[in-house]
């Protein structure tokens, strides 16, 4: 009996030791390799090697992580109000969220793209798309602030955005939803889709010195869904590639009706040709309305301008501008390898991954190897454009990035894995499970000419059992793999904020040293700045009261204000006089139903407050700033409307009668 037991235990031990024990479900225990912790470990006080910029999806924000640690460094509000720092609430930032539909306080942020110079990520700006109310934003990476937002006319579902050309000449924005355009009558039966609905692709130019965006031109395209895109690079610079689905032009039950055809398209756009047409005056001016919002880092405030015009090129009328390439089964990802030769289309429902050759596409165009045209755009013969197919890659290929060593890595949504394959021979090298259902993936510089193939980060759509449960809604899981060897090794899970879609990563050295530490108070051009306490004041103009108030460790000037009345419109203009790194001050007034502020050193921020009841309202600093932070407080007295209490304000002068001093009890 004992012997049998012994044999059983030995066998079990053997199984465990040799790893042949495989009934266990796949989980972290079996997927993580030895040394994982060491590879992802960044000791306290040490910096990460990469910044990872991760889109926030339905939270409308961007989050910034350090890699390889997965530490959350910052959340940057873009298309959504952000109570933490008053973005979208303060007078200075409200205009950032203005649109032709008025103030839109939130949106759905899907894709990010770092600016590039000569095909390399340069760390100057990162661009972001708003999917719902179509917009493109630019975030300055010296301040990690959203500094510009451009709305897009004639657009709906701005999904195919904000991908850029290799010198950041253009950011593109393609429509997922075809719609009747802004100047058309949109009040038409929905099932007249094929007649009344159109698609558009916007090209936004970017000033290479200051980053300022301008809607350069728009392509009028057929009413199909433009999904994702990437610019050509190196040899294919000058071209842009867009994946398209719903070539069926369905307007209901797309799940079925837009999945009918064996092949949809990749649209190849010759944007250099578009530039020529614009120069030749082939663009037609259309009167439209769209908001263009710019944040001025000297004035510490934004302005919103409604632009009135867009230049349109109709692809139907213009030769040599656009070509369709058939691509199997509702392609999603459309990714261009670092050499610019290979274009990878990922058909969500396809059992293979087609790889197209830029050279072959050019030859097919020259030889007119077309199988017909679709809405006036020539359709290239599939085989004439195809380099080859990756066979049996897995189920549900979505997105591909490149490691810079001639390999591609593709996410497989349905089979929950990432698959590494060689671009030249199209053979699969490795596959690793992810947890669960990966969407986008990211390699530092992975869509540039020079990827840094140290890591791939995979952003999973489903988390289930990966973390401690937190009710029905769970954090989404990012997973970090070391990809320096043939095998991809999972080394870290980290939770993310919102729902990450596309992400970008870049060597920290390209951003770290340009980071702004504080704003020079002498350069502050805000109309309501107080440069020093001597400049602080409270000014009444009818019902409007402007409070020019300063903060420094640890008091306000003024901190006693009287003579303000119910129904007054009080504007608090708060200037932080500090001139050192990491000394923001906060500002909050009791009962203010609009905002709190977080004011950076040297900055001025304002908010509006309309007191509704007479009484005493304390205000204080909400960001712990010094040993005497708790003393950083003040009062504003609100008198009834029609009261004749004179306006007064001071710091340290409004002293109580000395006879009222409380007893001194210590000996």
């Amino acid at each position: 009996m004992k012997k049998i037991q012994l044999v059983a235990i030995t066998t079990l031990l053997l199984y465990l030791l040799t790893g042949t024990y495989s009934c266990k479900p796949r989980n972290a225990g079996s997927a993580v390799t030895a040394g994982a912790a060491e590879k992802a470990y960044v000791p306290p006080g040490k910096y990460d090697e990469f910044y990872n910029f991760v889109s926030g999806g339905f939270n409308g924000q961007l989050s910034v992580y350090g890699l390889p640690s997965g530490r959350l460094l910052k959340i940057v509000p873009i298309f959504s109000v952000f109570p933490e720092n008053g973005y979208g609430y303060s007078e200075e930032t409200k205009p950032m969220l203005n649109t032709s539909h008025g103030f839109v306080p939130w949106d759905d942020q899907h894709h990010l793209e770092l600016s590039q110079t000569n095909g390399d990520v340069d760390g100057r700006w990162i661009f972001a798309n708003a999917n719902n109310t179509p917009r493109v934003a630019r975030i300055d990476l010296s301040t990690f602030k959203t500094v510009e937002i451009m709305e897009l006319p004639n657009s709906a579902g701005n999904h195919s955005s904000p991908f850029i050309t290799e010198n950041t000449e253009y950011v593109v924005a393609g429509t997922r939803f075809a719609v009747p355009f802004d100047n058309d009558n949109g009040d038409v039966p929905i099932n007249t889709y094929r007649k009344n609905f159109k698609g558009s692709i916007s090209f936004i130019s970017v000033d290479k010195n200051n980053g300022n965006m301008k809607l350069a031109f728009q392509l009028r395209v057929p009413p199909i869904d433009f999904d994702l895109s990437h610019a050509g690079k190196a040899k294919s610079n000058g071209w842009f590639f867009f994946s398209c689905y719903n070539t069926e032009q369905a307007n209901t039950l797309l799940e079925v009706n837009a999945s009918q055809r064996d092949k949809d398209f990749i649209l190849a756009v010759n944007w250099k040709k578009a530039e020529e047409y614009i120069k030749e005056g082939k663009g037609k001016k259309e009167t439209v309305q769209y908001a263009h919002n710019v944040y001025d880092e000297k004035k510490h405030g934004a302005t919103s301008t409604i632009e009135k015009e867009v230049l349109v090129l109709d692809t139907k009328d213009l030769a040599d501008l656009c070509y369709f390439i058939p691509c199997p089964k509702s392609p999603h990802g459309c990714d261009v390898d670092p050499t610019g030769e290979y274009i990878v289309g990922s058909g969500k429902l396809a059992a293979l991954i087609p790889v197209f050759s830029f050279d072959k596409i050019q030859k097919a165009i020259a030889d007119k190897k077309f199988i017909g045209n679709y809405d006036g755009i020539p359709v290239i013969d599939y085989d004439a454009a195809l380099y080859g197919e990756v066979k049996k890659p897995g189920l549900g290929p979505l997105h591909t990035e490149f490691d810079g060593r001639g390999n591609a890595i593709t996410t497989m949504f349905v089979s929950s894995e990432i698959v590494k394959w060689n671009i030249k021979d199209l053979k699969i090298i490795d596959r690793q499970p992810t947890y669960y259902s990966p969407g986008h993936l990211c390699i530092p510089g992975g869509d540039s000419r020079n990827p840094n193939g140290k890591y791939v980060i995979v952003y999973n759509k489903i988390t289930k059992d990966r973390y401690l449960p937190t009710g029905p809604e769970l954090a989404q899981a990012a997973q970090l793999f070391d990809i320096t060897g043939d095998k991809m090794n999972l080394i870290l899970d980290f939770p993310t904020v919102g729902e990450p879609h596309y992400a970008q990563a870049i060597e920290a050295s390209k951003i770290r040293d340009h980071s702004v530490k504080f704003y020079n108070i002498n350069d502050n051009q805000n109309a309501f700045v107080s440069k020093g306490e001597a400049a602080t004041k409270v000014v009444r103009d009818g019902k409007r009261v402007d409070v020019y108030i300063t903060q420094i460790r640890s008091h306000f000037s003024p901190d006693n204000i009287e003579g303000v009345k119910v129904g007054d419109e009080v504007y608090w203009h708060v200037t932080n006089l500090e001139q050192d790194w990491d000394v923001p001050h906060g500002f909050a007034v009791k009962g203010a139903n609009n905002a709190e502020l977080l004011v950076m050193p040297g900055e001025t921020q304002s908010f509006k407050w309309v007191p509704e009841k007479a009484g005493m309202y304390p205000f204080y600093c909400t960001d712990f700033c010094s040993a005497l932070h708790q003393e950083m407080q003040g009062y504003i007295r609100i008198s009834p409307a029609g009261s004749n209490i004179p306006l007064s304000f001071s710091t340290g002068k409004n002293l109580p009668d000395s006879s009222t001093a409380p007893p001194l009890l210590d000996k």
Partner: protein
Amino acid sequence: MKKILITALMAVVVIACGSNNTNNASDKTTGSSDQNSSSGNPSYDPKRGEGKFTKVDVSPTLDMAKADAGNKVYAVKCSACHKLTAEKLVGPGWKGVTDRHTAEWIMNFATNTDDMLTKDPKAQAMLEICLVRMPNQNLSDDDARNVYEFMRKNDGVK
């Protein structure tokens, strides 16, 4: 035999732990001796303070242009905490400050505030009274010189 093996294994473990401890201990020693040497450093000049200013040329008469420029810097960056009288507000009043400290000390303290607050006995004594670490207001070298001249004007230099 078994016993010997176990003993040997334990010995290895003990050695490993021991060597780690030794490392930590020596790290700590170096750290604290560094600290000692900085505050008790015989080469530290408490008159000059620590910073980039070693020798400031000060003329017996006032440079009015510099003093005016210094007044402007004072208004924006200093006046929130320092009065021009001897009265303490957040920081000490400026009356007599040019008699209490050298030009070098004042300019070093204004531009190298954190280091001085850590090392300088006079700065530390003042911190015990004020309890607020003076913020570094990022004065340029010229700003610091001009503010010093403004302090001289405040102290009656003509």
